[in-house]
């Protein structure tokens, strides 16, 4: 992955959350406070603006800057969680304008670890982790099987989407949806859904 591709991924993510903003907000209204679409849209628009203004010349620096922008602009839980994930991803990458597939996989692993450390969520808690974990597993499995970035990203996108759908049956144990207890069952988690959009964006720009 080079700087141009990383930028394209974040741009596609911004486009996806903008296009799906109403859906994310509807999902969040059912079990949260109905602002996930608005917040993600504001945050990723700010990321694109920040990167366009002063484009970093290294892939890692680009993700660090994107993460810092999300932390500064979004608020709520999604800002620190997605922001920390991107910062951790960027910090884990070796310096330079291009990174190898294995390094990217390692960076994505660091991103997930940051989310789990900050939010304390485990798989099955009906959160971002329920899309991110299976996506990462699929990505790593594809890489181990010899897939290129496009193949690994496609596998990750499929797994993230399945993971997000599987949250419908879960009872939330973290975040605002947990206040609903059993009433959170039957609704797809908005955070897992936005995570699936971001992995789909990676698949789209690498296909």
């Amino acid at each position, binding site marked *: 992955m080079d700087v141009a591709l990383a930028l394209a991924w974040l741009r596609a993510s911004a486009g996806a959350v903008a296009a799906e903003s109403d859906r994310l907000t509807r999902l969040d209204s059912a079990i949260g406070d109905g602002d996930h679409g608005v917040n993600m849209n504001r945050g990723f628009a700010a990321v694109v603006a920040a990167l366009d203004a002063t484009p970093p010349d290294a892939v890692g620096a680009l993700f660090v800057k994107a993460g810092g922008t999300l932390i500064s602009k979004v608020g709520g*839980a999604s800002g*620190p969680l997605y922001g920390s994930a991107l910062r951790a991803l960027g910090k884990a990458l070796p310096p330079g304008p291009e990174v190898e597939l294995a390094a990217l996989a390692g960076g994505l692993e660091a991103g997930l670890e940051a989310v789990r450390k900050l939010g304390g969520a485990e798989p099955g808690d009906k959160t971002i982790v329920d899309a991110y974990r299976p996506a990462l597993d699929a990505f790593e499995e594809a890489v181990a099987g010899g897939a290129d970035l496009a193949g690994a990203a496609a596998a990750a996108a499929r797994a993230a989407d399945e993971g997000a759908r599987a949250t419908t049956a879960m009872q939330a144990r973290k975040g605002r949806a947990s*206040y609903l207890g059993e009433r959170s069952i039957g609704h797809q988690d908005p955070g897992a859904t936005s995570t699936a959009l971001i992995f789909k964006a990676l698949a789209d720009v690498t296909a």
Partner: protein
Amino acid sequence: MKKFINDPADVVAEALAGLAAAHPDDLRVDVSEQYIARADAPRGGKVALVSGGGSGHEPLHGGFVGTGMLDAACPGEVFTSPVPDQILAATKAVDGGAGVVHVVKNYTGDVMNFQLAAELAADEGIAVETVLVDDDVAVENSTWTAGRRGTGATLLVEKIAGARAEEGGKLAEVAAIGREVNTASASFAYALTAGTTPAAGRPGFDLPEDEIEVGVGIHGEPGRRREKLRPARELVRSALDAILEAKPVNDGDQVIVLVNGLGGTPLLELYLVYGEVATVLAERGVRVARRLVGNYVTSLDMAGMSLTVTRVTDEMIRLWDAPVRTPGLRWGA
């Protein structure tokens, strides 16, 4: 849903500008960094209190900035916690060298953003103590949830800890009394209608004409369950049962009671509710030392109310009675 706004995207910034214009002598509002501070901050040697949270709960928190309460407040977007940069800017602006107490309502986003801000402040040499408010007993406090939410007790924590700081309390003392107030508090809320955020433009949930949400929070999130509407006397009794079961009050104990409107409930109904509360507490031998009735910790235009009962010591009553001069709460000063 009709609202007095210009553009939904500008509501928070424009309301902040309006707050500044309305209280030019008492408040200093930094519109670009998005915080509200006491006009006389920083006060050298005084422990500063900083709170914040999503907008839509006014007068909490910005309306509680002033003498005897908060030194600064950081409003986030509607129902969205403020960001770390904002909290750090407010913390630095009011730090008088004696340390800063962050009063944080227990919501995942608020906790994360304040934690990141406290780490940044520590890097700059500012001592920060965090007081977490989690008084809402409608939520089970277990490893299976994000824990109890911070609601009405936030006002009591900010008032009592703020008074302690005003009279020269040290950082650890101010934080300690804030935590004691939180531990001694329990709250429970009902909603009759959902609130409408300016961005969504439609109510957060739909309720049939004869149903209520039981155990709602202050962000338009649905409650624990729905029930048929019952007379106020029965709803008050159920809420107090939950409150007193979670935080028992013994015969002869003194309490402060907050009957809090969620934004869309007339004072007429809130006073009716207070009358029922007074009756039930008298039956149980609980002495109401002080009480407050009104819209203080709101959820936009939600019709609903919350009850908060705080078991208080004489020291807490003394601090409650101490002078306070803020847009939202004012006595003795």
